[in-house]
């Protein structure tokens, strides 16, 4: 009983803080303040997902927040002080947003009880797949096609970023983000080993517990970025054949295993009996390498002229 009260008040505080931070972010005059508010909002949202029992979603939320934070902060530095939109336009937009939010609230409050869901169906085949985490089964078995093509989306985004380079530099290394300083140097020497171990753990437990390739890849990408920011490693040349091979490895391995399914057991993206778990682990490892690399390369940006030393 007391624990219930305790949890309810904890949730209430979380919800009120979420709303307050969201409001702060919307009302902030300066882009930088709005971005910082938004980052805090993301972290609190991750906590809310934990409270709702969706730990996989929470980890993903935190991972995406960690990746977008440097991008948003960087972009906010360029954002000038633009004139705010005219009052009637702002009023109209506010009314539209309020209408959508209000309708959503009504729909969520009137949602069917109990919520119709595929959760039971998703859990039933876990034994046959030898997996403990239904989220992994959804991502790599039931809806593996979605996951495969989502990695292709990331690849397309990367190609899109590369295509923004100047003709003569597009295969060169991106501009280095290095801004060495003693504390950064220390962090870059201490954190990556720890980060890699945690990433491997997230990847490995993903089959049976919350975690998985995307969260692990984000962590590895962050460690790579840290090394480059401390100036310990230069960004790689984008035309490098081995780099390209590592980028392609994940989707290629996934697709190859999917196509092999045509022959055995006879369906695209199906796994032969007893082979589901080992094959899923191979796919997840290959995807982790490729996604980590793609995320890092996206943060680094298109190929750039070498600074004249």
């Amino acid at each position: 009983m007391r624990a219930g009260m305790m949890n309810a008040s904890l949730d209430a505080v979380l919800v009120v803080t979420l709303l307050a931070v969201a409001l702060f972010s919307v009302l902030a005059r300066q882009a930088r303040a709005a971005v910082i508010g938004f980052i805090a909002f993301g972290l609190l949202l991750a906590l809310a997902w934990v409270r709702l029992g969706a730990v996989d979603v929470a980890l993903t939320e935190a991972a995406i927040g960690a990746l977008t934070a440097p991008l948003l902060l960087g972009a906010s530095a360029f954002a000038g002080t633009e004139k705010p939109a005219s009052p009637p336009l702002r009023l109209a937009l506010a009314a539209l947003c309020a209408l959508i939010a209000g309708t959503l609230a009504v729909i969520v409050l009137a949602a069917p009880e109990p919520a119709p869901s595929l959760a039971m169906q998703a859990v039933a085949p876990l034994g046959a797949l030898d997996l403990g985490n239904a989220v992994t089964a959804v991502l790599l078995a039931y809806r593996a096609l979605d996951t495969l093509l989502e990695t292709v989306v990331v690849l397309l985004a990367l190609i899109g970023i590369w295509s923004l380079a100047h003709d003569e530099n597009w295969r060169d290394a991106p501009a280095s983000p290095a801004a060495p300083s003693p504390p950064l140097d220390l962090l870059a020497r201490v954190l990556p080993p720890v980060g890699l171990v945690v990433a491997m753990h997230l990847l490995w437990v993903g089959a049976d517990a919350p975690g998985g390739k995307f969260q692990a890849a984000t962590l590895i990408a962050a460690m790579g970025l840290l090394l480059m920011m401390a100036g310990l490693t230069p960004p790689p040349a984008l035309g490098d054949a081995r780099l390209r091979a590592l980028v392609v490895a994940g989707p290629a391995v996934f697709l190859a295993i999917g196509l092999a399914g045509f022959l055995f057991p006879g369906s695209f993206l199906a796994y032969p009996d007893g082979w589901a778990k080992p094959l899923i682990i191979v796919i997840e490892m290959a995807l982790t390498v490729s996604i980590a690399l793609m995320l890092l390369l996206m943060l680094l940006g298109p190929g750039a002229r070498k600074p004249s030393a």
Partner: protein
Amino acid sequence: MGMATTTGPLLVLAVVVPVIGMLALLVMPFLGIRRPATVALAVVAVGVAIASAIGIDLVRSKEAIVYVVGGWAPPLGLQLRADGLSGVMMAMAALVIAAVALYARPQFDMAEDAPGGRRAFAFWSLLMGLWSALNLVFLGEDLFNLFVALELLTFAAVPLVCLDGKAETIEAALRYLVFALIGSALYLLGTAILYGQYGTLDIGTLHGRASANLATHAAIALMIGGLMAKAALFPLHLWLPPAHAGAPAPASAVLSALVVKAPFFIILRLWFDVLPEPPSEAAARVLALLGAAAILVCSVVALRQRRLKLMIAYSTVAQIGYLFLMFILIEPGVAPWTTIGWTGGMLQLISHALAKAAMFLAAGLIAEALGHDRIADLAGAGRTVPVSVFAFGLAGLSLMGLPPSGGFIAKLLLLNAAILSGAWWVAIVISVGGLLAAAYVARVLKRAMAAPATAIETRAVAREREWPALGLALCAVALGFVPLQPLDMLAIGRGALP
């Protein structure tokens, strides 16, 4: 399903073969290939063969082809399904992409590390990604799977806009990206609401379960709103003209002919396959009114453009408007694919795709020959690139709705449907739209056919580069010979939706 499963794997291949091409482009050194165009053209050949095989099987079996991915049946898993409509759409996409690839080859034939290699590599990679996305849009049966298709489409289409790397094209691409992502967010929101209500995302399952309530209508409204932004329906079209006009000609052709049709196709699926009957008449009227506004406003704006490519882009927004007239012309209670309103709408979609791709390809060569695309100074184009000007004119027939052309049949069917259903204002809009299109096409042709007042400097264009545009324009004309009635091909597998 029994008969169809033998060709089912073709549906998977239609989606993954372009992806294999895209991956291969990244590791060409290991494959011993130097030019991205080599890989891409091989994929185009295979892709055309796959689309043809699917089409032939549909015609022969008269049944939809179904493939359950990984053996996980919906609603838990995903299924791909090709009925007559998707078969026709895939054939249209394959035809346009093949013509565009042939056209683009001389322009983007360099090795990756040669001058211009960046554009060549990006163009072919993005074209492959785009084709996979389109096929998935036509084959997907699951609302989230279709979301993935839309994401693939967005991230392949947006960078195509700024291949030139000029500041204004990058700005146009960014604006396109913002519109497309807002559209995606709205679509995803609606998808989540539907899952919360019905516990499934499979269109076939939803078809039976969806009931007319606030949540369902709000979800579909959000999704259609988001898709309207992606399809550039007036007044959400502001991103389209600078984006489609700024891209290189072959990219403009696929963007205008195919990419904006994909979100429209999903709107059709939502309207006819998910929305519980009968669809709201008020909503149909809103869509038709926006379509009519697109036709009238953007045709007039097209008429006032100074640049050829911008004029063609505004014409795209106007022609998209015709598609949205369909919703008011299909009487409720009848199977839509047996009506002339539906047939007219689909023929408009296909003939516009062929004609618009032909126009952008022809305009690209006209601009290359003259060194500019100012409409006022087009004199001499008829002499320098006669085949391209001829292709432009033939494609123009289809946009105006003059016989013989697919556009003529499409607009005649829509006009008849409007008169039969008593929607006089729609009939007037269709007629006025045809006149305005005639005006903007004629304005270009008149200038292009004129002899230049002073000697102009032109660049020679190899004659064979002009054939793909002519081929597409002739296909648009050939569509004018289909019978004036609901087509059997478009009805294959439609009635069998569970």
